[in-house]
């Protein structure tokens, strides 16, 4: 593994998407680690927000819950959910990170259920949570997820959170704020963006030793590939050091070795 795990690689790749002087709404786990890593390396003015109300904390350790007291430790503001969601609704949130039970080619996400009958689902997932709000309102939505065919599907069982819906212009037609939408998907195989003409997912860089064929095999819909297709830069020694020693010293997220 060249001295780093897939989780570490994903966190480092995600962190690089975050510019300084911007706001990011995160959950717990890998997205929070990515934001903390970016803060420590090049984005000291990246403001981290949590949907339950934490705004700009100095995170002493990884939060366990999106609402636990770490999320507003020495914060700029210990606010409310509506404060954060209204900030997003008026255009103040630059990035958000979401997970995905299922995701389709347009970046639409299912986190509600598996099955064909709403009233008797085969598997019930938690639901939209804050994901629908954040995916509707933040300027750029990033997804971190493992890459396999059960997740990357042609058709969602349930469209919980909007990506580009049915393609170009569909978000705006539905009433969602113009200029928002899916931005990156970071998996254990590659980093994907979206083709601006079609709004369909497009591979932008492959992780070391991953092939085009392997990515397509693990994806349930046709992908396009950016040309020339880059290799995802592996984590630098500095990134790994900060991630392991400062961001997640108790290895809550990057796991025990």
């Amino acid at each position, binding site marked *: 593994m060249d001295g780093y795990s897939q989780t570490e690689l994903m966190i480092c790749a995600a962190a690089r998407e975050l510019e300084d002087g911007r706001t990011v709404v995160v959950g717990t786990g890998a997205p929070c680690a990515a934001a903390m890593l970016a803060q420590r390396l090049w984005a000291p003015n990246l403001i981290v927000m949590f949907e339950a109300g934490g705004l700009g904390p100095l995170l002493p350790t990884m939060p366990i819950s999106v609402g636990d007291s770490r999320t507003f430790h020495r914060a700029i503001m210990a606010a409310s959910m*509506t404060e954060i969601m209204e900030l997003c609704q008026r255009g103040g949130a630059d990035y958000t990170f979401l997970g995905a039970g299922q995701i389709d080619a347009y970046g639409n996400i299912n986190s509600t259920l598996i099955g064909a009958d709403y009233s008797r689902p085969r598997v019930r997932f938690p639901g939209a949570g804050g994901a629908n709000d954040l995916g509707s309102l933040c300027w750029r939505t990033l997804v971190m997820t493992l890459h396999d065919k059960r997740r990357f599907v042609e058709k969602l069982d349930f469209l919980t959170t909007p990506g580009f819906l049915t393609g170009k212009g569909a978000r705006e037609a*539905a009433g969602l704020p113009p200029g928002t939408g899916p931005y990156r998907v970071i998996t254990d195989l590659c980093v994907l963006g979206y083709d601006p003409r079609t709004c369909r997912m497009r591979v932008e860089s492959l992780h070391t030793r991953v092939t085009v064929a392997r990515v397509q095999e693990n994806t349930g819909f046709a992908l396009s590939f950016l040309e020339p297709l880059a290799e995802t830069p592996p984590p630098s020694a500095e990134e790994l050091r900060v991630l392991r020693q400062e961001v997640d010293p108790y290895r809550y997220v990057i796991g025990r070795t």
Partner: protein
Amino acid sequence: MGENPRAGEFFCAPDPDGLRDFLRRKPRDLIAKVTSAREAIARFVHDGDYLATGGFGTNRIPVALLHEVVRQRRRHLGFAGHTATHDCQILVAGDCLDRCDVAYVVGLEARGLSLTARRAFESGRVQAREWSNGALAWRYKAAAMGLPFLPARVMLGTDTFAFSGCWEITCPYTGMKLAALPALSPDVALIHVQRADEYGNAQIDGITVADLDLARAAKHVVISTERLIPNELIRREPQRTAIPYFCVDAVVEVRYGGYPGNVAYEYFSDEEHLREWLAVEQDPDAFRAFLDRHIFGVPDFQAYLALRGGETRLAQLRAEEMLDGPREGA
């Protein structure tokens, strides 16, 4: 996923004029409302009521009050699943619910899914409607504002919208499409706070989540508080009042009343116990025994705390909250 055949119908429908009439008759005297958890739940939570809880999943949730709801075997409750994690888990374990406005249920965030809660929703035993966390927070806010609905730019274009029962409206000035989120006024809200006086004036430390709006939206409010404080302390810092007394029907003093959740500046969550809850649900017999032991078999919340290690364990969680205790693996 198709359309919701029940668009425009809600588990708890908006009725601002009805809420106005109710609140007109609600007493506003400054009278002492301190009582026990048992008495508060007996008086203010009835079979069939629509219930909502404050806090956020495992943070500042009213666990002592929820145990009492289970212990008194309330049935057919509606529930607002606004990032409802351990709170939802408790109510489903007690078979208290038959309908739920879902934003986030059956999971405990990164800790995993509650098998019992999943089965309750998958079997159809608990009926669901879909919302987002923001949408439910704004639905409380609409009711708190005395409005029938609030417009919002979320849920649009999704199955979440279709299965909410919401309708779209058009802004008369801009032509923008908006979701019309119907006001949500629960029959009763259970809210845990750090401090309250005997009348129900409550102070909250840290994030308030959706509790300010919820307390104003609900017809009845039961407050559990880490500690009672004199009214004089409320009046000394009037801008710290998060919930004014006239919203509140009962005040219950329960130290550690949010355990095993986290209460800011008081104690951190007991992750070990939360993991135990999730694990024991894998075996229905063991889970029944677990509930008998921890809820049905104890007279009150203090006995539950004693079973969990009492002051020794709570002192550890206090230390962890103050960031000078041991760090547990998540």
